[in-house]
């Protein structure tokens, strides 16, 4: 048995709650989790003990309001170990699309009384604001990875969270590659492993739910898909979804535009 039950807190910022629900979805394991860790603060499930320190804070969601930006500082000070869970917390989430648009304008369209909305111009990952100890990627996080993380924290070891490509697991499962065999633009080669290769297993491309892998070579993969006739705007949208604002994916528009430019200069258009 571990010497002392770790005290765990689960905090929410701008997000859909899906990652917290993944924790609740560990139905069978949850009783064991509850025996092994003291869940001190978890609004989604009940407990809200705000006193003292937490050994581990799991943070879901991105920083999108001035209040969030202050609250995360206080939470960091309360937690020995801070773990971000999900694409919102690790990359800013789908709501980071505003980072390339005008947040005020969006608010005008969405809310009946936009004057009541206090929001930041950007949605940013937690790590842009405070030090993060571990990242659990995914939209939503993977249950097995979540249990691996909790188990590692309980037993005082480093969690095993590989940074290799989705392709590795795709090939381990002997899935036929949709990019090579069907010409589909798949993000697997630039996306971090984490899911059970759900999309290629169902004949679909990887949508990048787990964010950029260790070296996401968007230039080379983008060039291949562009050369095969995939539309640059489509490719940009594909990369710019749940994890679009992750550092490895953020500049996809510039990368693809530069690739396009390289082709244009190689193949000048015929004189008018």
């Amino acid at each position, binding site marked *: *048995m*571990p010497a002392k039950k770790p005290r765990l807190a689960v905090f929410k910022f701008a997000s859909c709650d899906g990652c917290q629900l993944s924790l609740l979805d560990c139905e069978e*394991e949850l009783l*064991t*989790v509850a*025996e*092994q860790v003291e869940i001190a603060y978890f609004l989604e499930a009940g407990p809200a003990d705000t006193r003292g320190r937490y050994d581990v804070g799991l943070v879901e969601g991105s920083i999108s309001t001035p209040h969030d930006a202050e609250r995360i500082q206080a939470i960091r000070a309360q937690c020995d170990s801070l773990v971000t869970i999900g694409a919102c917390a690790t990359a800013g989430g789908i709501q980071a699309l505003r980072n390339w648009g005008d947040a005020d304008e969006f608010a005008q369209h969405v809310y009946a009384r936009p004057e009541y909305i206090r929001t930041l111009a950007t949605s940013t990952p937690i790590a842009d604001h405070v030090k993060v100890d571990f990242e659990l990627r995914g939209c939503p996080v993977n249950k097995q990875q979540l*249990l*691996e993380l*909790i*188990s590692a924290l*309980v*037993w005082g070891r480093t969690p*095993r969270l*590989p*940074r*290799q*490509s989705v*392709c*590795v697991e795709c*090939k*381990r*499962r*002997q*899935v*036929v*590659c949709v*990019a*090579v*065999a*069907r*010409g589909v633009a*798949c993000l*697997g*080669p*630039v996306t971090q492993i984490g899911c059970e290769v759900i999309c290629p297993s169902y*004949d679909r491309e990887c949508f990048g739910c787990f964010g950029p892998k*260790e*070296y996401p*070579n968007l*230039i*080379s*993969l983008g*060039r*291949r898909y562009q050369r095969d006739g995939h539309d640059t705007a489509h490719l940009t949208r594909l990369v710019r979804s749940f994890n679009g604002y992750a550092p490895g994916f953020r500049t996809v528009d510039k990368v693809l535009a530069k690739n396009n430019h390289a082709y244009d200069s190689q193949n000048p258009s015929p004189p008018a």
Partner: protein
Amino acid sequence: MTPAPPPGPPWWMKKPALQTLIDRLRADGYEVLGPRMADGAITLAPLTNLAHLPRGVRDDQQPGRYRLTMADDGGYFDHVVGPHSLKPLVFPPRTTVLEVLRVRDGWEYRTPEPPQPKRAILGVRACDLHALAIQDRVFLGGAYRDPEYAARRAGLFLIAVNCSRSAPTCFCASMNTGPAVRGGADLILTELTDGFLGVAGSDRAAPYLAAVGERPASPEEQAEAAAIPQRAAAQQTRRIDPTTVHDTLMNNLEHRRWADVAKRCLSCANCTMVCPTCFCSTVNDVSDLVGTHTRRQRVWESCFNEEHSHTAGGPVHPTTKSRYRQWLTHKLATWIDQFGTSGCVGCGRCITWCPVGIDITEEVAAMEGGRV
């Protein structure tokens, strides 16, 4: 490294006799696997009927591209190797090598009994037989034998087929590993226009050949059969010179081509995963939350992953450039120093299944000019 020439005289059989072969093998407890069309590719999958074979289907293979084309007529084996090799059958992508249980006064260690499936594989190509021989050396040669590999390997009954065509990605002829099957299989078939020519490659094949063989093959049929893999060899355009490649690579470890290929390479590991000889794995201990049960899992790993060379001081291969160099030099050069054979059999899978179509024969050729 060339396996012994096959024993036994060639027999002629009708094409439907293949069904008898499948039925006999199944009656003897074998699960029969062979080429089957699925998900836009010719995969290696269980089959029970001749109709499951991809008759008349051809695979167009190019760097980073694979497409099937269909004809109404044509043979059962007009395709070449698909994405799947024999590797996962003998070296599974994920397996439990040890279980540790907490008991009252300590720990109990259990080594799982390796499974011993009896499997007959129909349609194995020369390159893949050579790859299996290379893996035999890796997993069974030397002091440490892999028990799971040994058990799975012993259960294989291999029915080889001589290739009647090559894909543009095939380069076995230059590597001396094909297209003609020269042994290493239990039964060797060549598909003729209206029948098969069959040769027993092992003693245990004799009863099967006796059951399906109609009569000894005529000299004309033997000549027709011999010409078939020759025709496939003549189609090959890619090549690597196995006598010089070791030094070409090892004398050019700082060639600027490594940096050039690193710009194109995604470090995605697809090449190592599809390669029929790559044998790397990692070991993960997966413990339950209460700490009473831990499984030690062995999973496929690749030198394109940071974890592959991770040490206390960081990864030995931190960049795509050094990882690509590790892959290519291991396959084609240091494998020879390590095992006495090349680690490449020229099957071309790494070329076809690389998402950006990086071609190892082209990378080697770029370095053949010497130091740049």
